[in-house]
């Protein structure tokens, strides 16, 4: 009798402390710390391997180059927390930039208006994805966006065939190459979006609802979360950010063509997965994905500086990804104790 009371007390205590206690161990066990460590390692090893790596201008320009796809990472984090995926983003980049270039070059639309239409096209692509996914719930997001991936890329080819379209006004090249007080413009925009999306995901009701849906879609629906609306907003954001990428990319190259941004969706998904966002949904943080962008970006840059072949580079990044995704799932303690037991019996 006495014992049971004690147990009950313990139970109550545990639930209370779990809610409030700040655990130092838990804090340092976060995935983001590990990512920062890997990031520092990448920097250290790159510096060791190439005398050119620690070069301010070189690092700045490399950052400019790999940041273009990073914009899509933000909404992709949300999509993957929702247990979905969007593989049409690369094609969305191509379609929206091709529409922008065609409007400006062939239809005499002013560049400013063409940029706005480019954003609208991106948002529309996302909207179509979102609508298809909520209307046909039995279809997985992979299949739906696989379809639109082929469709959007196909449309881009229909519009421009196998041609490039460029001749943008002089000022347009500022997006891709411009600096503000020595800092690349694209980096400033990236930082703004990074802050915005981090706040959106972690400090707003909207963000909490995304996590709720990722953890348990049914429960969140019955709790009054407008699950369909949230899904559509997130997919529209993905389309919109793809259009932002399209603007930066078209500006960087001074032209666009239907095959731009090939495989960008895979790079983006790799960054999100490395960032510790669980594909099972409901888990992950924006910060992790942001660190992952820089890990992959600088790893690629460093390997490029020592002229490793592109195929080898893919292998290395593939291994990094597999290791980071698989290892946390392994039951290392089990393996360890079995190993110890075996040795003891021998």
């Amino acid at each position, binding site marked *: 009798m006495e014992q049971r009371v004690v147990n009950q007390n313990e139970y109550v205590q545990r639930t209370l402390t779990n809610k409030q206690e700040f655990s130092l161990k838990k804090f340092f*066990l976060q995935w983001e710390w590990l990512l920062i*460590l890997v990031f520092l390692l990448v920097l250290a090893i790159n510096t060791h391997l190439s005398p*050119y790596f620690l070069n301010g201008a070189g690092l700045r320009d490399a950052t400019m180059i790999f940041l*273009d796809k990073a914009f899509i990472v933000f909404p992709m984090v949300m999509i993957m927390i929702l247990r979905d995926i969007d593989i049409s983003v690369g094609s969305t980049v191509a379609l929206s930039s091709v529409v922008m270039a065609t409007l400006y070059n062939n239809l005499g639309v002013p560049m400013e208006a063409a940029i706005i239409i480019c954003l609208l096209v991106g948002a529309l692509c996302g909207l179509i994805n979102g609508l298809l996914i909520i209307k046909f719930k039995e279809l997985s997001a992979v299949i739906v966006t696989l379809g639109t991936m082929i469709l959007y890329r196909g449309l881009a080819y229909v519009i421009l065939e196998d041609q490039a379209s460029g001749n943008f006004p002089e000022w347009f090249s500022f997006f891709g190459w411009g600096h503000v007080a020595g800092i690349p413009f694209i980096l400033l925009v990236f930082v703004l979006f990074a802050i915005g999306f981090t706040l959106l995901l972690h400090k707003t009701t909207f963000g909490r609802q995304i996590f709720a849906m990722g953890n348990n879609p049914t429960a969140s629906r019955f709790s009054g979360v407008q699950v369909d609306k949230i899904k559509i907003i997130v997919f529209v954001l993905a389309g919109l950010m793809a259009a932002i990428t399209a603007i930066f990319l078209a500006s960087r190259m001074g032209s666009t063509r239907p095959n731009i941004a090939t495989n960008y969706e895979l790079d983006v998904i790799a960054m999100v997965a490395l960032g510790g966002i669980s594909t099972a949904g409901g888990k992950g943080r924006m910060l992790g994905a942001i660190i992952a962008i820089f890990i992959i970006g600088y790893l690629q840059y460093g390997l490029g500086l020592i002229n490793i072949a592109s195929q080898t580079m893919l292998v290395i990044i593939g291994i*990094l990804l597999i*290791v980071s995704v698989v290892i946390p799932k392994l039951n*290392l303690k089990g393996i*360890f104790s079995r190993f110890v037991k075996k040795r003891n019996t021998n």
Partner: protein
Amino acid sequence: MRRFLSKWAVVGLTVAMLAACGDQKTNQGTETEGGEASSDGGTPKYAMVFKNTGNPYGEKMMDGFQEAIEEVGGEVILRAPDQPTAEGQIQIIEQLITQQVDAIAIAANDQDALEPVLKKAMDQGIKILSVDSAVNANSRLVHVNQADPERIGRSQIEAVSEMINGEGQIAVLSATSQATNQNLWIEWMKKELEEPGYENIELVKVAYGDDLRDKSVSETEALLKSYPDLKAIVAPTTVGIAAAGKVITDKGLNGKVIVTGLGLPSEMASYIESGVSPAMFLWNPIDVGYGAGIASYALVQEEITGKVGESFEAGRLGEKEVVEDGDGTQIMLGDPFRFDAENIDEWKDVY
């Protein structure tokens, strides 16, 4: 505990992996340095950027480039993005700029998109030349062209004359009627026909297959119907020559009408082996790469600057001259390469 262990395992493996990359680098370094003096910035660095990896045509070209640089002395850097896109090439060129290479020879995925980054490279004193697939005139010093249009045109007439023993009717099956390359080559074919020795050869028609397979097939059929005595079809386009080869084979005209022109060895191998096309031409990618390598060297040594009228000694290719090409300049590499029954086996898997 389990999560703790697993996370540190990730760190360990990553370290091991990156360390492995380090080993690879040192291997590569010794390989490329060769017997040259030093690697402390004294050895010039020559880079070639191809369209994409895993392209047999590009691999051959890079082999030729490497051969040339080994001949003149220097470090070779061969790069290609894994996708044939301009953005991949921009990324690589940025890395090459940071490494302070001396010259970059590029086979471009886009004529204009590389302009900003190539101009940036030229501003830093890097010599830029395009090869095989040109960049616009603003973003290069010179372009290394596969083959001289005059030789492309004349060689095909020489070959066809030999195949039909200098007598009979021939027809040309071209791409579109506006194709600048093909029109230039056909002009040279006509000039060659005016030379002595070709009096008994009659060019009856120039047909246009528009580089479409079905149109090329129907144009070939029309030629055979209109000119029953036709001895040969010359198709200076890879689509046309393959279509003509197929029609002649299907109609059982092997031996009556022969086919020649410019074709891909991989597509033409069966027709060359069957005798429908005893020989045909295309440039040799190894020579293209070799020429680009020597031209890079000449630019770095300031033997040439890319202006019309300059010339340099291009190793085993002989003396080459810089000539005009639209707004820019180019270097033409001699004769197109001849493929026939004797050498087709070694080339058909190459490109």
